[in-house]
């Protein structure tokens, strides 16, 4: 009889979590019913010789932006009816609504390149609404370069995502900042959210770690051995150089911005033991938040309220996840076992992503994976399973994507995925790349 009881329990284990874990869909907006959208190639309507290449870049980038958005089921181009589409008169909605495309939405338009100027016209139509299908009609004009073709595609994709995704801005123009040792030293690098345009930002020829961009996108706070330390340093993206930030003594690391950009939390061992401190954005008005002996690192603000800070503490032995109020009171422990590090708060303030070795054992502790935890209910879900060490999750501004570092390809690289763990994509390939941080918009 006991054997059957176990089997029934197993059956329930399949059924119950399916309903209980809808919180991940709500919190992230991913995993619900996806919109079937068709994206035929934009026709070239005027060509001064450059149009073909620009058109290709535009089409590729638009298609990948919409595929990566997390809310669309982009219909494969092999299902599209034949015939180039350049404008509304070319579209026959019934052919798009019928199988095989069975599309609910269609984005189409044309690309024109005339005397060095690139102009793109784009429409978004509701396939099922024959009387009034138009949702969007947009026109973009920039100088004709490949980067601008890419930029216009990002902009148009973001417009579509904003409209059909329920008012949450798309991330196609957002940026990622990370650490790479490609130049021989660990420096801060930047790239587009899809891995394009990777470029070096700092040239300090020292060891730099944990970059965090400010909410207004003008500065990057990070930790570096450039002046001994390591110290919290501030890089200005506008001025392209370091700007002043106080040196506190001891080991200073893992800076984190509040979502209004007014305060920075970080870990400092100026007192002889690493504790969490908060200062204003210039490093003044220092205030200490934690008191227990043991390593306290990696603070993360609740970006919705700025009223809570999550952080990692080794006060009981292995590092565990804790949450406290931003004044240091009401600290509570969240994880009960294993080795937990690198908390990252979702933009809506409901979820915490972090890296966890749940079953830490003697000898080799095993791989760490990215987990997402619902802060209110303390329910969690595991997002990565494929082996390798996965660490440093960072949320996208739309709350639907997570970027992280992983060794699953053999070397340490930056990967990105939807917040339910699907569509895992490698973004970097050369050198050793780590500690990614997603911009705020």
């Amino acid at each position: 009889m006991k054997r059957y009881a176990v089997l029934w329990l197993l059956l329930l284990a399949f059924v119950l979590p399916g309903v209980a874990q809808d919180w991940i869909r709500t919190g992230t907006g991913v995993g619900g019913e996806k919109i079937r959208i068709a994206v035929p190639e934009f026709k070239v309507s005027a060509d001064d010789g450059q149009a073909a290449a620009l058109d290709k870049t535009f089409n590729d980038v638009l298609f990948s932006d919409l595929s990566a958005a997390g809310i669309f089921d982009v219909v494969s181009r092999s299902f599209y009816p034949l015939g180039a589409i350049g404008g509304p008169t070319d579209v026959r909605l019934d052919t798009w609504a019928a199988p095989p495309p069975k599309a609910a939405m269609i984005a189409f338009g044309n690309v024109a390149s005339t005397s060095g100027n690139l102009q793109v016209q784009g429409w978004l139509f509701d396939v099922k609404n024959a009387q009034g299908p138009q949702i969007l009609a947009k026109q973009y004009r920039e100088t004709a370069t490949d980067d601008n073709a890419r930029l216009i595609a990002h902009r148009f994709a973001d417009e579509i995502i904003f409209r059909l995704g329920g008012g949450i801005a798309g991330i196609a123009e957002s940026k990622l900042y990370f650490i790479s040792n490609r130049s021989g030293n660990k420096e801060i690098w930047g790239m587009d959210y899809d891995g394009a345009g990777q470029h070096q930002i700092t040239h300090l020829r020292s060891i730099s770690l944990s970059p965090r961009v400010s909410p207004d996108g003008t500065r990057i706070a990070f930790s570096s051995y450039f002046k001994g330390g390591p110290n919290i340093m501030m890089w200005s993206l506008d001025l392209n150089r370091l700007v002043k930030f106080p040196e506190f003594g001891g080991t200073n690391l893992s800076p984190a911005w509040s979502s209004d950009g007014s305060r920075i939390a970080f870990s400092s061992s100026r007192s002889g033991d690493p504790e969490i401190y908060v200062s204003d954005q210039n490093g003044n008005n220092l205030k200490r938040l934690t008191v227990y002996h043991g390593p306290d690192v990696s603070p993360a603000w609740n970006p919705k309220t700025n009223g809570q800070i999550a952080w990692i503490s080794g006060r009981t032995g292995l590092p565990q996840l804790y949450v406290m109020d931003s004044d240091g009171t009401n600290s509570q422990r969240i994880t009960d076992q294993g080795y937990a590090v690198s908390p990252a708060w979702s933009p809506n303030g409901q979820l915490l992503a972090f890296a966890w070795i749940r079953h830490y054992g003697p000898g080799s502790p095993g791989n760490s994976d990215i987990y997402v935890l619902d802060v209110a209910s303390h329910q969690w879900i595991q997002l990565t399973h494929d082996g390798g060490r996965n660490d440093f999750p960072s949320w996208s501004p739309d709350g639907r994507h997570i970027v992280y570092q992983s060794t699953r390809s053999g070397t340490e690289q930056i990967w990105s995925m939807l917040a339910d763990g699907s569509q895992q994509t490698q973004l970097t390939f050369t050198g050793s790349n780590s500690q990614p941080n997603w911009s705020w918009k």
Partner: protein
Amino acid sequence: MTVSPASSDSLALEDKVNRSWLKWTLLVLALTAALAVGGCKKKAAPPAPPAAPPPPQPKATLSVNPESIQRGQSATLTWSTQDATSISIDGIGTVQASGSQSVSPTASTNYHLTAQGPGGSADATARLTVTEPPPPPKAAAPPEPSEEELFAANMKDIYFDYDKYDLRPGDQAAVDTDAAFLKAHPSIKFTIEGHCDERGSTDYNLALGDNRANAARDALVRAGVSASQIKVISYGKEKPFCTESNESCWQQNRRDHFVYGR
């Protein structure tokens, strides 16, 4: 007995046989003579060979480099010969036609090379002078080892268990030795570097390394070392001592490393 024609035949036959034997002998003799003549003729036929030119006189050279050495040093003897079949050097023995050899005699030596060949013989000599080495300089006392060398020789790094920053009981002896040395050299200023193994997260390891370095610092201060001598820095897992992924390398990296200077 009637004389039958047979007997006359047999007589004739005998005769024939006798005659054929004679024929054969004559033939053989003739052949032999012909052969002898021919052979002799062959020997005699080729014209007399021209008189062989007289064999060339062998040549020999011998040199030594350098020509003067101090006792205990060595020099190289180099020789070359031509048209010689037997070459020898006094004191060395039979040698190749050309070559060189390192020699290290204790006294000045005349090296004499003899080259013999069909055309005659040749000689060559080389003199190697051996001088007394200058008297060795008075052995200076070995230099006083520097503070840095003393430090490196005496200070023992402290090792840690995984994810721990408290000193193991066995490390107390190391702390005591280190403290004793540091108290004896109060002018030495040094840095404690905290390190971690490659597993685990970058940021957490930086903090853990800091705790490790401070644990050693606190232990030394408790043992009487002046805090002003000590600087502390954590490198987390950023500067490992080895990069293999096995326990022995990991243990190597989980340490406080003492470095002279600040």
